[in-house]
Each structure stands twice: as structure tokens, then as C-alpha cells.
């Protein structure tokens, strides 16, 4: 088995083990390990990958793991990354399901979440901040950003529609 396949498995296992909060809260871990530590994707491709995960069904973490693994070593890499990201959580769910009542009342879980809930805010916003210079490259981009924020926040447009609109506008501005 190529070394890269093992490296994919263990990297994603590490990401999966501390990926609390799901979806966007996991992005800083992904970005640090995939873009910075291993250089498996450039930052712009990383952003494109998030967009692709949004417009396809399924959880972002599974989509991302499959995308990165497949891009590196095909089906084998995709399998290694995807099984890696769920390996530790799956065992934890198995254990926790036997102690549901203790879990519900656990002061440790409540305590940890006193810190993690606000941490998610910081994690999600820092992942937005770290991609902003690659995503918004001129004044048109900044204008588009505020329009899209309005559509999401005020009009409450569906995320997929927002992505479609941004693609059309991108084609007009940059095409």
C-alpha cells in the first residue's frame, strides 16, 4: 500500500477525532492539515471543494475527505480518507450508546461544551477570515460579498441558490 494512502488515513483520523460541532467548525482543522501541513490542496482549490460539498448532497466532512483522497490517489485514497475521518467517532458512538443516561447527565460533557460552543464561533469565523484574500480578489468581489450576505441574512435565500447566483455573477465579471 502506498505511503500516501496510510498518511491520508491517519491525517483524517486525527481530524475526525477532534472535529466537534460538525460542518464549518471542522474547516480550520481541515485547512491546517490539508492546505498547510501536507499541501495536498491549494487554498483556492480548498475553497472550491467547500463549494462543491455544498451543491452536492451529503455531509461536508465526507465530501471533503472523498474529494481530497480521490484527488491524491484515486478510489483507494478516497476510501482511506473517508474511513479515517469516521474511525474514532464511530468507536465513541458505540461506547456512548451503552451509557446514554450517564452521558446525558455528565458534568464533563456539559463542562466541555461550555468552552466548545463559543469555540465553534471563533473556529467558523477564523476559517472565513483565512480564505477571504483568496476568495475576494477585487472591489467587484467585495461588492458581491455584501450582496450575497444580504441575500442569505435578510432574504434568507437557500445556500445552493446563493452559490448558483455567485457563479453566474462570476462568469459575467471575470469571464
Amino acid at each position: 500500500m502506498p505511503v500516501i494512502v496510510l498518511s491520508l488515513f491517519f491525517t483524517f483520523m486525527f481530524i475526525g477525532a477532534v472535529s466537534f460541532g460538525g460542518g464549518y467548525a471542522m474547516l480550520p482543522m481541515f485547512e491546517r492539515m490539508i492546505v498547510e501541513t501536507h499541501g495536498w490542496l491549494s487554498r483556492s482549490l480548498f475553497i472550491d471543494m467547500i463549494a462543491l460539498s455544498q451543491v452536492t448532497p451529503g455531509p461536508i466532512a465526507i465530501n471533503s475527505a472523498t474529494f481530497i483522497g480521490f484527488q491524491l490517489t484515486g478510489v483507494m485514497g478516497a476510501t482511506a480518507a473517508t474511513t479515517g475521518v469516521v474511525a474514532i467517532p464511530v468507536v465513541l458512538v458505540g461506547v456512548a450508546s451503552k451509557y446514554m443516561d450517564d452521558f446525558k447527565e455528565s458534568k464533563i460533557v456539559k463542562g466541555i461544551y461550555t468552552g466548545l460552543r463559543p469555540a465553534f464561533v471563533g473556529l467558523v469565523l477564523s476559517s472565513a477570515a483565512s480564505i477571504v484574500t483568496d476568495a475576494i480578489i477585487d472591489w467587484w468581489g467585495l461588492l458581491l460579498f455584501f450582496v450575497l450576505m444580504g441575500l442569505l441574512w435578510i432574504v434568507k435565500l437557500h445556500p445552493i441558490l446563493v452559490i448558483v447566483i455567485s457563479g453566474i455573477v462570476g462568469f459575467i465579471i471575470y469571464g
Partner: protein
Amino acid sequence: MQTVSLLTLFRTFLKIGAFTFGGGYAMIPIFEREFVQRYGYIKEEEFGDVLVMVQSLPGVIAINFAIYIGLRLRGIKGAIASAVGVALPSFIIIMVIATFFFQYIDHPVVAAIFQGVRVAVVALITTAGLKFLKQNFHMQGIFLASLTFVLVFSAGVHPFFVIVGLAFLGYVIFMTKDVIARDRA
């Protein structure tokens, strides 16, 4: 308790995996409809407890949920059938898309479209962050959120250490408050 076949588990999760956009949180109401309301495999109250558990543990919410339901209804085999079912559609769809994506991303039209799409990604993530912020809009929440942001983004500390550190800090804060509350009582 009704017994459910492995095939039914696999098929139900496959369907959810194939048709739910927007990740784990978007899947929760569908899980509830399929497993609580439609088939009655899981009671409403248990569903609530499971939800708390799968969201408190690390990992992918949809997979965690599939593992729990599978284990609970059909043991290890059920867990495998459910988890593979919910992940398989993403797995296949992403591989197909990735194949085309890398062939065409350098084409000027595709590159222009994605330059626009990247702006939408920033907007989507920012919106998610602001929604989380609204839920934590008190002194302690804002302080811990800012601390996380500064450590990860400005200081470049590895998110792993920040997550573990904040979990520990949260535990200390919670226990301290707990002790103070008990002293008063």
C-alpha cells in the same frame, strides 16, 4: 420493538444520504421523520437524547447517527449497513464530480465561475459563524469566541490545541460555577 431488515436500514440511509443537501444538520429532521414518525423504530424521547449525544461527540453527525440507529436496531451489522448507506451517495457523487472538476478547472469560463463561487463560500461560512455568535451572545461566550479566533487566525496556533484547550477551559469554568452554586445553596 419491531425488527428491521439490514436492507431496509441500508436503503433508508442511502436515500437520506442521496437527497439531503447542506450536511448533517439538514439531515436531522429527515432522520426524525423516517425513524420516529414513519416506522416508529425509535421513540421521540430517545431521539432527543440521541441527538444530544451524536452532536456532543466528535465526527460527522450523519454518520454518528447512522451508527447509533444501526447498532440499536441490528447490532454491528446494522451499524455498518447504515453508515455505508448514508456515506455511499456522497462518496460516489464526489468522485464523479472531482474527475470532471480537475479536467475543466483551468478552462477560463469555469475559472471565472469559480472565482464568483468562492465569494459565496466566504458569505456562507460568515453567515454560519454569525448565527453561532448570536446563540453565544453573552460576555463569557464573546470572550471565549474571540480568544479562539485570535489564537487560530492571528497567532496561528494549531486548531487541535485550541479545541482541546477551550474544552478544558470550559470544563474548569463550569465546575467552578458549579462549586460556587453549591456553596451558596
